[in-house]
């Protein structure tokens, strides 16, 4: 390094011609709030993983039911409560995805234990394989036999694959879970978007016009906020015909209030800023001030709030289905699937596990996305 520096010829250097005007030119375009946000979100590993997961879940919920060989409402009692069976993975025994049921039976000797297994497994002795763990010495329940029942073969369904098994009515759970995911997501997103439109309009108008309009609108809002949303949602569901729209309306009837409050607070704050005053002095119409100055500045808050209202709508939908106010059968949503799963929790827990895991993943993903967006849009911690 030292040597190289000495070799440089002084004549290579020239003074930079720098005039007053050039000093004032901004070299790079200043990045917008959105660009800043995108840049910081790209660095957020959890955010990117969640985004990827969400995209996968959305795509699955749209295409899995279409590609599937079964429909969400196709019943066949002959194949009720089949175990989960997935090609390729069925050969890996510890995953328990082979569609075979394994259970341990006890008896005085091997024979009685095997007989118990037989009665338990539809008397299909040809399809049960026994694995004697302990021969037993004739005393009560000393013999231990592990019986594996190949239900798919017994029912003549060797060529069928129910990835998540079937429910009590023989419906394919894989198709139902993804179909239910789509319905749940649809309800949540629709509710969140309607909340957004009403909330932004209400809050924006109240704050922008201020004075008596604001006062009246806010008093009305306070009364509405005072009514517990659980109560309103349940009352609305009772009077509307059950279905997707009833749930969406019930969720939005109280859901928009928090958005309206937030937007109002933010617009009130922005309204006092100089750039709004400047624009008004220059003769910009109200419409233009709202569209060009106020809305872009509240955008971050609106996006974040919507992101958080989606998981709470998903939860509420599941909750309503759970207490019997949800979608009527045979339609599936994550809530109705979980509700059904509880009925067979003791015998086939897999019916509860799949929708429960999926709803948990969706909720976590949305919360992480919301957290990430909040941090990204928060100018206080802007990098």
């Amino acid at each position, binding site marked *: 390094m030292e040597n190289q520096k000495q070799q440089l010829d002084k004549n290579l250097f020239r003074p930079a011609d720098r005039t007053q005007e050039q000093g004032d030119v901004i070299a790079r375009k200043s990045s917008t709030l959105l660009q800043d946000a995108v840049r910081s979100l790209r660095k957020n590993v959890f955010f990117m993983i969640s985004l990827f997961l969400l995209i996968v879940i959305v795509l699955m919920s749209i295409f899995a039911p279409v590609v599937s060989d079964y429909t969400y409402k196709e019943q066949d009692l002959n194949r009720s409560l089949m175990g989960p069976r997935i090609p390729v993975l069925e050969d890996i025994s510890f995953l328990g995805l082979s569609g075979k049921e394994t259970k341990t039976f006890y008896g005085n000797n091997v024979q009685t234990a095997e007989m118990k297994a037989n009665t338990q497994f539809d008397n299909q002795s040809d399809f049960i394989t026994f694995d004697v763990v302990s021969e037993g010495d004739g005393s009560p329940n000393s013999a231990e036999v592990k019986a594996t029942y190949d239900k798919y073969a017994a029912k003549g369904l060797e060529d069928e694959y129910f990835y998540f098994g079937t429910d009590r009515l023989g419906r394919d759970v894989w198709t139902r879970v993804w179909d239910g995911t789509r319905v749940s997501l649809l309800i949540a997103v629709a509710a969140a978007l309607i909340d957004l439109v009403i909330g932004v309009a209400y809050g924006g108008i109240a704050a922008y016009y201020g004075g008596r309009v604001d006062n009246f609108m806010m008093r009305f809002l306070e009364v509405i906020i005072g009514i517990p949303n659980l109560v309103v949602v349940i009352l609305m569901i009772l009077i509307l015909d059950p279905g997707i729209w009833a749930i969406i309306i019930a969720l939005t009837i109280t859901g928009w209030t928090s958005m309206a409050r937030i937007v109002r607070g933010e617009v009130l704050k922005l309204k006092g800023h100089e750039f709004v005053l400047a624009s008004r002095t220059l003769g910009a119409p109200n419409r233009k001030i709202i569209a060009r100055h106020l809305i872009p500045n509240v955008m971050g808050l609106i996006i974040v709030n919507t992101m958080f209202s989606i998981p709470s709508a998903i939860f509420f939908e*599941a909750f309503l289905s759970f*207490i*019997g*106010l949800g979608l009527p059968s045979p339609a599936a949503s994550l809530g109705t699937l979980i509700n059904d799963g509880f009925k067979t929790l003791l015998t086939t827990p897999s019916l509860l596990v799949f929708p429960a895991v999926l709803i*948990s993943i969706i909720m976590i993903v949305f919360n992480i996305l919301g957290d990430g967006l909040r941090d990204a849009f928060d100018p206080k911690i802007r990098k």
Partner: protein
Amino acid sequence: MARYIGQRIIYMIITLFLIATISFVLMKLLPGSPLANANKLTEEQQEVIYEKYGLNDPIPVQYANYLGGLVQGDLGISFKYDNRSVSDILGDRIGPSAQLGIQALIIGTVLGILLGLVSAIYHNGITDYLSTIIAVLGTSIPSFVFAGLLQFFVAVKWGILPVATWNGFEYSILPTIALAIFPMATCARFMRTEMIEVLNEDYITTAKAKGLAGSAIIFKHGIRNALIPLITILGPLAVGLLTGTLVIEQIFSVPGIGEQFVTSVNTNDFPIIMGTTMFFAVVFIVMILIIDILYGLIDPRIRLSGKD
């Protein structure tokens, strides 16, 4: 302050009146009736039953009677349980619900505060990450999923605690845990942010400069200031618990108000549905009022900004 409380109470009364009116209108619109098998009864028998429920009066009279009854705590008579008044049925069932709610609120907030404090004090350490993960899972995963897990593993697989019903303290443990997870996670998240913020305040630096011991700084200056804003989330937490009890009581067959409500929803017993709704509304609104007043008393800034 008196003016603030007075204003809040007036709002509360308006809101309750509105809810009562909506409930009444809905009750008139809905197709439920006290007659379980109407076609088997004679005209006179039907008359007697209608008379009993006051359904022969003109609607405005019924409305006045309904409001008058509400003020006295009379919520009407159940359609399904013979001659039992709704307030009677709810009175029988309030015990388990209240016990569950209070246990869950105490356990949830205490554990949540501890968790939040630990992760704020060891900010960015492994404990912080662990408790953040617990908090995210706890706020995201619905309580009924936890309830299912607890029931399946703790009760069915390992047989440590009873699966369901209500027969003493050990029966309340699993539902309490399932209910407490949400408030715990919410408190932990909230406490963590508050505590980190407080620990960056100037007065903490002053305390450090004064040479106070670390524990004295955290306990005397940190926790006290971080705890005040916690009161604001107690309201939403209590509401969450109310919602939670509906599901959790159903899953664990706890004979509480929530379980009764779900049963009544499925049997169209409208007087009970409306009565419970009114009851929830009153509990909710009074709770929010108390919390707001408490917060106003502790932190004068809220009172002043409350006027906007």
